């Protein structure tokens, strides 16, 4: 399952771009365009630093919008020096992005064409515009549709780890509950709240503690959930104590028997109000 894909080469390309921009920036005489170039260096370096092969940071919108804005700003402030970069627009449009950022970028491309118009002169501006239209058509043909939200809900968050989205839990929970009843297996739902910066390391540790057939879910930026299966109550108790012994400490945990957790809303609200570090809900028996 582990993918062979490495992000290293892409990171190298990003850094090469940043380096070239950093060469160009000090040669600028205008303050505004030098500033924009440094912003570009910053954007490329940060993207390279944050880049990883997982769904941990799905491309954020303002982040994707930034290259288009920088390019427009640069063409606006220093048209004579960087007219050549006008041809980067098809590449900006080629980036995987939702349709509204695509629309914005198309508009920005139009604005930078207008900014360059005095430099081109009417005939050349017409040919530049037509050529951009042809290249845009090619970019649109080649465009890779960004992941649909529906698809994003059903994928693993990190390749190779049984870590899924909150939506997947709402699908898995009733199925597992029914199955535990049918097979007479003791199933538990673990809710775990950790400090925000520890979420992904904790998720990784939790995933390694699980059996192959159990799954872990990321509910929000602080909360994880896991479905635990044991043969009986005694074994479940052992697993609870091993888990609590291995997971990092500033945390809040709650174990719920699957038989009582038919809906996620109520236990989750209880969990958020919970003051103690560990609670284990049991099924009430009234004889």
């Amino acid at each position: 399952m582990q993918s062979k894909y490495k992000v290293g080469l892409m990171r190298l390309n990003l850094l090469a771009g940043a380096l070239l921009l950093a060469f160009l920036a000090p040669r600028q005489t205008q303050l505004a365009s030098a500033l924009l170039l440094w912003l570009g260096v910053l954007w490329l370096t940060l993207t390279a630093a944050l880049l990883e092969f997982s769904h941990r940071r799905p491309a954020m919108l303002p982040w994707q919008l930034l290259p288009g804005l920088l390019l427009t700003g640069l063409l606006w402030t220093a048209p004579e020096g960087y007219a050549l970069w006008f041809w980067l627009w098809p590449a900006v449009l080629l980036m995987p992005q939702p349709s509204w950022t695509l629309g914005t970028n198309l508009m920005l491309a139009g604005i930078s064409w207008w900014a360059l118009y005095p430099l081109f002169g009417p005939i050349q501006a017409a040919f530049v515009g037509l050529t951009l239209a042809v290249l845009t058509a090619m970019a649109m043909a080649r465009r890779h549709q960004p992941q649909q939200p529906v698809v994003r809900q059903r994928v693993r968050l990190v390749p190779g780890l049984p870590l899924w989205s909150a939506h997947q839990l709402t699908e898995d929970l009733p199925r597992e509950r029914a199955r535990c009843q049918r097979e007479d297996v003791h199933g538990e739902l673990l809710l775990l709240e950790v400090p925000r910066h520890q979420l992904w390391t904790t998720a990784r540790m939790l995933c390694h503690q699980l059996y192959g057939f159990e799954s872990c879910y990321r509910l929000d930026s602080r909360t994880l959930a896991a479905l635990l299966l044991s043969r009986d109550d005694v074994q479940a108790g052992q697993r609870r104590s091993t888990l609590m012994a291995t997971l990092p400490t500033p945390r809040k945990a709650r174990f719920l028997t699957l038989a009582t957790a038919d809906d996620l809303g109520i236990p989750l609200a209880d969990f958020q109000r919970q003051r103690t570090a560990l609670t284990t809900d049991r099924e009430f028996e009234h004889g």
Partner: protein
Amino acid sequence: MDESTPNTAGRFALAYVSGALLLVSYAAWHYLMGHYARILLPALLAILMLVAAVLRLTVLNHPRLPAYLALIAGYLLLAVELPRLGDSATLWVGLAPVLSTLLLPLMPALTLNVVMAPAWLLLCGAPLFSDPSLAYLTAMALAPLALWEQRRQRALMLATDPRDRDCQALSRDGLHAHLDSEFQRTELLHQSLAIVVIHLPQVEMASEQFGSRARQALLDTLCREVRRCSRRHDFLGRQTLSTFWLVLPDTSESGAQLVQQRILHALESVVLVDTGPLRSRMGLCQRLPGEDWQRFLRRLLDLTQRLETQ
């Protein structure tokens, strides 16, 4: 994979036709200016672009060839015109790295850009280590980033999406991961495990003879009927292009036979528009007591092979 769909082909053909129109208008402009010697090249290249568009629409299996033609057209015109453009040469030279990025896969585009960079800089007359050539090199470094990101997202989806791309079943990787974990589960809980192997011999010929729609109808029908006949926690996965595994956790041999009969009965009554009555071959693989994962998997693969070659 999505490069061969008719929709993409149409969009590429449209792009090539618009390229041809651009070249025609360039030739027309030369005619109006009285540069008769410069008309021939863009006019010929316009014809080349039209050929590329026609090829893209008719030969679906080779999407690269028309892209090469378009790239050659763009490069030729650029190489011939750049020395004549004077001051604007430093603007138009920026087309070269972007054209290769748009038309070639990532690695060939990168290589071509690096190899051709000195030639382009020479043609546009910019001195080395001047601002225009640095700007050119930067454009060359930045343009392929879009392709890198496309590639990363595609690889990420392949590595994390458990579902098959064509139908409502698990993909091969997803199936094997799920089956592995289900095996562990049944072992821990001392349960039985059964797998029904379903082979659809019509899938391969369907796409060759009737196109992708007939194949899709076959796959959709199978997934729907199997879902109707199975429980919520049984899962269907696509082992090979035409063979599916239906994994039945906690199911005895007689239970699995019942499921097999039910599916067979459901599929027998199906008649599809293109391919006619749906044909299927099925086999049952029950986990033997004490059998380990490797042996079980080998038996399963043998059964799959037998059904496919029958």
